[in-house]
């Protein structure tokens, strides 16, 4: 499905011209229908790997290595072909849905432009399909949600919308970048479950970026542990959990919360695609998600 | 002017505080250094220029009207036969003194209002806020013109009237910065120790908003040059026969229509060059331009 080989990324400091390495030779192969978890701390390069796959790495960065998706090397594709692939074969679910959606356009526009403008479906069919997709991710008041603006919906509700948009084009590869981290603790599990279910139903491959080992273990087939821009260990969740080989993985396992029901600490993940967290300033009482 | 600029540049490395100067130079870039040169020349002209002018800037002769530039009159003469070059040099003083009055008055009154509002908070803050709202309702040049209408034209009245028009803007900015300081734990702690508000403001709040006041004043200085020149242009600022750039632009208006654009253009260029140079330096040293640039 997708083969990443020897991916390197360095950020050029605009003042000194120094090259700061962020990814140091990532190699990873994912089979069709397989889900792989990228786990590691902030700044380990998890999210940057996803951005390289999509070709949306920061402007002042230098990337080398190959990313081959279904026989095409994404790093060398012409712009318009890459855009086509983003629209049809790869979908991204980012950390903070409130930042990911254009705040001044209604949900309907978000879904329709994904299906019609990017994907070439006709507008009327897309409208019907948008409604169906929302129902599929467990949203009942479809019409109200379609007409709502992002700031009127809760994070959980909005992330379902994003998932609906992401799977509507039946992409082969789903990139999930901490998709539940920014959500309420109560909705995290629901959203993760919906994502997991839809992915399996549609047989999509997935790269699931998270710092939460248990969550990753629950929704993926294999785990890749990242540190300082390198993958230090790859294995099934069971192997990683029961028999971690790398010292860093052992350390990660040891600091997991052990009490039942203990929740991971709030984690400010600076290396996600997130630029700003505009949702933080929005009042929670305006959400209509809770009444749906 | 070009000759004096290079003189300023070439003497710069000889100054003892070389490290600091080099860092300022790096931040300014070469355009910034040219701007600094322009400002230095203007300030120099304002301070000592009047002792070196070739002709008396306020005395002319009717037989010498509208002369073109020559060896005798570097930039020619105006409608009253006065030497334009001498008037430009002498005009630097009034063109800078006015804005200086404006900036100092604005900074002092603005900070005092802001500190009073911040320290007492509550009703005092709300009341002062309302007062500022009323001043905000006037476009600043209108407020200045009203002031001149009431107190009569002149450099000092025009400057003070303009300062009143600027105060709400500076007071609002300083208030917001001072408010942040006011709410910091160490200020609260000092208050609980019973140190009086005046002392705390002077010792803790003022030093922390100082840069803000200074930056604001730099920006105001540019606006004040333009606005005061506009008041002179309208005949409401400094009165003839004084040498002043705004007044020269205004005087030159008639000559311009008779085909002698020199006076207005030279005076106008002086205003533009000074304001642009100050704005550029302010922006570079404020660091905002640098931040904006690296983002591209």
């Amino acid at each position, binding site marked *: 499905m997708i083969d990443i080989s020897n991916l390197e990324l360095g950020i050029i400091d605009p003042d000194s011209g120094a090259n700061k390495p962020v990814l140091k030779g990532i190699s990873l192969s994912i089979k069709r229908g397989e889900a792989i978890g990228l786990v590691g701390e902030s700044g380990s390069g998890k999210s940057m790997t996803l951005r390289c796959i999509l070709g*949306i790495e920061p402007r002042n960065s230098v990337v080398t290595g190959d990313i081959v998706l279904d026989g095409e090397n994404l790093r060398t594709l012409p712009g318009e072909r890459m*855009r086509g692939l983003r*629209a049809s074969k790869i979908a*991204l679910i*980012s950390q*903070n849905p409130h*930042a*990911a*959606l254009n*705040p*001044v*356009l*209604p949900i309907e526009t978000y879904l329709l*432009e994904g299906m019609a*403008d*990017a994907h070439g479906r006709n507008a009327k069919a897309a409208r019907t399909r948008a409604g169906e997709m929302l129902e599929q991710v467990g949203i009942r008041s479809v019409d109200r949600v379609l007409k709502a*603006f992002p700031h009127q919906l809760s994070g959980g509700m909005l992330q379902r919308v994003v998932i609906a948009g992401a799977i509507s084009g039946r992409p082969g590869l789903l990139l999930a970048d901490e998709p539940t981290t920014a959500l309420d603790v109560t909705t995290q599990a629901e959203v993760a479950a919906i994502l997991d279910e839809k992915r399996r139903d549609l047989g999509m491959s997935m790269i699931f970026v998270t710092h939460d080992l248990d969550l990753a273990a629950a929704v993926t087939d294999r785990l890749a542990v990242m540190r300082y821009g390198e993958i230090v260990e790859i294995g099934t969740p069971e192997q990683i959990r029961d028999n971690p080989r790398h010292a860093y993985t052992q350390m990660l396992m040891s600091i997991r919360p052990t009490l039942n029901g203990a929740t991971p600490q709030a984690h400010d993940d600076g290396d996600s*695609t*997130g*630029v700003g967290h*505009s949702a933080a300033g929005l*009042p929670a009482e*305006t959400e209509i998600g809770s009444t749906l | 002017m070009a000759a004096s600029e290079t003189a300023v540049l070439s003497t710069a490395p000889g100054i003892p505080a070389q490290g600091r100067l080099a860092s300022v130079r790096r931040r300014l870039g070469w355009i910034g250094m040219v701007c600094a040169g322009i400002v230095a020349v203007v300030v120099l002209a304002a301070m000592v220029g009047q002792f070196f002018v070739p002709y008396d800037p306020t005395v002319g002769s009717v037989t010498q009207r509208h002369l073109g530039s020559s060896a005798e009159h570097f930039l020619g003469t105006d409608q009253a036969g006065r030497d334009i070059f001498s008037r430009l040099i002498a005009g630097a003083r009034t063109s800078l003194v006015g804005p200086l009055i404006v900036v100092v008055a604005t900074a002092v009154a603005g900070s005092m209002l802001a500190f009073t509002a911040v320290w007492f908070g509550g009703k005092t803050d709300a009341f002062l806020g309302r007062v500022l*709202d*009323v001043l*905000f*309702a*006037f*476009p600043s*040049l*209108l407020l200045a*013109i009203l002031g*001149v*209408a*009431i*107190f009569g034209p002149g450099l000092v009245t025009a400057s003070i009237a303009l300062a009143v028009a600027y105060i709400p803007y500076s007071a609002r900015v300083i208030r917001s910065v001072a408010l942040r300081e006011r709410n910091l734990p160490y200020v609260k702690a000092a208050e609980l120790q019973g140190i009086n508000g005046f002392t705390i403001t002077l010792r803790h709040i003022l030093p922390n908003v100082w840069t803000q006041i200074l930056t604001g004043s730099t920006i105001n200085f*540019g606006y004040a040059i*333009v606005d005061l*020149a*506009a008041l002179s*242009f*309208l*005949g409401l600022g400094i009165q003839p026969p004084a040498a002043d750039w*705004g007044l020269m*632009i*205004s005087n*030159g*208006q008639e000559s*311009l*229509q008779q085909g002698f*654009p020199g006076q*207005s*253009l030279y005076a106008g260029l002086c205003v*533009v060059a000074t*304001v642009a140079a100050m*704005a*550029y330096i302010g922006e570079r040293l404020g660091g905002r331009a640098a931040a*904006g640039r690296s*983002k*591209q």
Partner: protein
Amino acid sequence: MRFLVHRLLALGGVLIASSMIVFGGLYLAPGSPEQFLVQGRTVSPEVLAAIRSQYSLDDPLPVRYWNWLSGLFTGDMGRSLLTQQDVGTLIASRIPTTLSLAAVAAVLIIVAGIGLGILAGTRGGVAARIVIFASNLGIAVPTFFAALVLMSVFSMGLGWFPVFGAGDGVVDRVWHLTLPALALSLPSIAVVARITRTAIVEESESEHVLIAVARGLPKRIVLWRHTVRNSLLPVTTAVGMQIAGLIAGAFVVEYAFTLDGIGALLVNSVQRKDFAVVQAVALIMVVAFGVVNLAVDLLYAVIDPRVRLKKGQ
């Protein structure tokens, strides 16, 4: 709705207070009110009596203020202290010039300011550098100097535009007002172009634009619907503030081009110490300034759903 009422009340309060300042200015002046109003001119006893009654100087201060204010509301703005003309009529004859000047200037600000900003923000490279440089220059050039340069180049030098007057009829008027409006709007065009460019550059780095690219949306949609459209929201406020600011810039331009607008009327009245006219014009300008600023705030609330939907609840 509550937002609107609240804002209207606030504006009303500020305007009342402003009217007190305009009215009270008379009493701040050195010397007695009569002395100030007459300004050393020799006037006949009848004229002096007329001035005393116009300002009801025989009544206590609050009554004077009330008479003056209620006079304004009924359209009676008193008489010029110099020519004895009715101030209301005088101003009414001058307003069309100022309004058309401001209208042409506003169009220039919107079209040229936003247009250049979009050009610089979306193209980058040489176009951006030229716009940035020109806008730095434009901000530094005082209106009156721009007026003189434009006049000497296009009217005196090339003879393309008339030097004076406001013209008759629509086409002639626009032709007469082009240079003054250009001089008036130049600094604003520079400011708006710069703000627009910055807003576009910032918006293009926002996460939702990055995500729009990642979703494979066509370039044109990412650029216009997500980047430019969003960045124009804050620009609206800036444009509105600049248009409100035209009221202040108009004095200078009208004076430079000898247009018979209310700005020039104000300046001439200050020069001739005709305080009755000064008061009336100043108050009209403050009202116009306040109304335009309010309109801008309301417009912003209407076009941004985040504000609109919050305020609506």
